[in-house]
């Protein structure tokens, strides 16, 4: 048997970095130059934070194997944390944006810790109901903490700065995907996956399941908080009713449609499900019917989601191509001998 060609790690990282940088610069200059209309740009930005919301929820549903229904709660916490911080803009713009995003993530992560420790003692339906309750409590709190959030009237965002620009949103998207990838391809990620597959066996292997469940929950909440901040930065007024149960369900729908445990699937599904409503504007009244039908058909014909558990890897594809070419050449040489 022939030795398989494997792309060395530094080369792999270099290829990915170059491609990502190229994509960011090209897309950004296109948008800056007015190559895309305002509406199109707005959709692309919206897709960006839904990608982060979906891949962060996927950590819990896909990798840890639990079903929380309160993702919008963490998103709301992040959105308000950033918005309130941004109202007191005292830093230079770039630093201000970065600080706001980090604060949003950290505050949402703290909430994740607070909810995760008690909630993760339960599984299945119980966890779903507890997190659902949490999401609703957060929304009610935001409505009632008038002095801080301006309640149901909504919080005015500062006008002077463009927080959720294409570049900011997509740098966050890419960092999020890399962040999740490097964790999942490590002993920590394997620990999380082992809990999903068999909790008792994981414990018997010395995996501290309580720690990893809470850690997964906190990471997921942290990222949802950042997505919330990007969401807040995209609007002139932040309204609490946006972060209701339906928001959590929408995010969950993206994850399920993309395939539980497939980050690539979440990305694709976030794009499709965010863009679809704009295509369906003429059919606005039937939107939810179409969505539900899609989901039902999916469950019948491809219950593992669009991508199953497949994850996209450019270097793996390159390796396959190179190995294919090598094997062809090798075959010819063999024939000559």
């Amino acid at each position: 048997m022939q030795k398989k060609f494997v792309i060395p790690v530094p080369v792999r990282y270099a290829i990915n970095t170059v491609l990502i940088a190229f994509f960011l610069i090209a897309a950004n200059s296109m948008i800056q130059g007015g190559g895309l209309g305002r509406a199109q740009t707005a959709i692309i930005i919206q897709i960006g934070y839904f990608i982060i919301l979906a891949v962060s929820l996927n950590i819990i549903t896909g990798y840890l194997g639990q079903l929380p229904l309160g993702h919008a709660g963490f998103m709301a916490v992040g959105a308000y944390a950033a918005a309130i911080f941004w109202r007191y803009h005292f830093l230079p713009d770039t630093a201000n944006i970065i600080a706001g995003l980090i604060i949003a993530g950290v505050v949402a992560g703290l909430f994740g810790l607070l909810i995760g420790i008690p909630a993760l003692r339960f599984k299945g339906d119980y966890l779903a109901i507890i997190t659902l309750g949490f999401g609703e409590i957060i929304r009610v709190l935001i409505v009632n903490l008038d002095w801080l959030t301006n309640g149901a009237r909504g919080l005015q965002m500062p006008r002077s700065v463009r927080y959720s620009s294409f570049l900011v949103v997509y740098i966050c998207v890419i960092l999020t995907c890399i962040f999740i990838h490097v964790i999942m391809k490590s002993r920590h990620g394997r620990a999380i996956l082992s809990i999903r597959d068999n909790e008792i066996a994981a414990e018997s292997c010395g995996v501290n399941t309580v720690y990893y469940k809470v850690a997964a929950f906190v990471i997921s909440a942290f990222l949802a908080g950042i997505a919330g901040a990007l969401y807040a930065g995209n609007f002139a007024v932040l309204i609490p009713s946006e972060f209701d149960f339906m928001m959590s369900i929408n995010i969950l729908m993206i994850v399920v449609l993309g395939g539980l445990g497939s980050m690539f699937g979440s990305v694709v599904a976030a794009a499709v499900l965010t863009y679809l409503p704009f295509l369906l504007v003429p059919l606005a009244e039937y939107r939810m019917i179409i969505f539900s039908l899609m989901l039902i058909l999916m469950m019948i014909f491809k219950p593992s989601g669009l991508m199953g558990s497949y994850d996209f890897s450019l270097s793996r594809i390159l390796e396959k191509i190179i190995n294919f070419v090598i094997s062809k050449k090798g075959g010819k040489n063999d024939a000559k001998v």
Partner: protein
Amino acid sequence: MQKSNVLECVGLGIDFGGLTAVNDFNIEIGTTDIYGLIGPNGAGKTTVFNLLTKVYKPTRGSVFVNGVDTKNLNTVKANKLGLARTFQNIRLFQNMTVQENVMVGLHNEIGYNLASAIFRLPSYWRAEKKAKERVCDLLSIFGMQDMIEHKAGSLPYGSQRRLEIVRALATSPKILLLDEPAAGMNPAETDELMKNIQLINEKFKIAVLLIEHDMKLVMGICEKLAVLNYGMLIAKGTPAEIQSNPAVIEAYLGA
């Protein structure tokens, strides 16, 4: 408490509601013993494993590992103390590869922190590389090193049982608890498995506690046997002693 015993149970017992599943279980296992735990179906053998590994909390009695009382430990800490096990109803990480399964067994040995993983520090690369080599070494005991990319759930039944043993070994145990490892294997496979269990016992210098309900299987490799019936220890001794023990004969014929 003798130092040379890796595992010691004193008056161990558990009740499920009104049912006493295990009662007054006593055993002393030396550091390199291959010990057999036999008994008819439903005798309480698996329950003993669950008590040892703290999947169940004992109602009565104590378990000592290398002289350390495991009273307040959970399953994770029991593993860190040196107890590793396989399961009668296989519990692999079905959707993970063979390599990943064993790497979960190496979880605590690999040891790098979250930051090393996130920033891909040298400690990450070093530990991962070493772990992958360890995985291949361990799998080679059963000649499974070519299966690393396979999904655990897609393996044939016998290989799944062997993989469970490898995963348990990966946690560097002092005593390996095997729950009917030969179940579902044909005689040739069973024979080879028993040889490999002996090999593991010699190579890693660890004790093995082997559950089996078929008495003949364990006679060949165990120096000592304990027999459970209806949750009670009815006999302990060498295979020869056990074979001629009237209580054991009755339990097996009665069953």
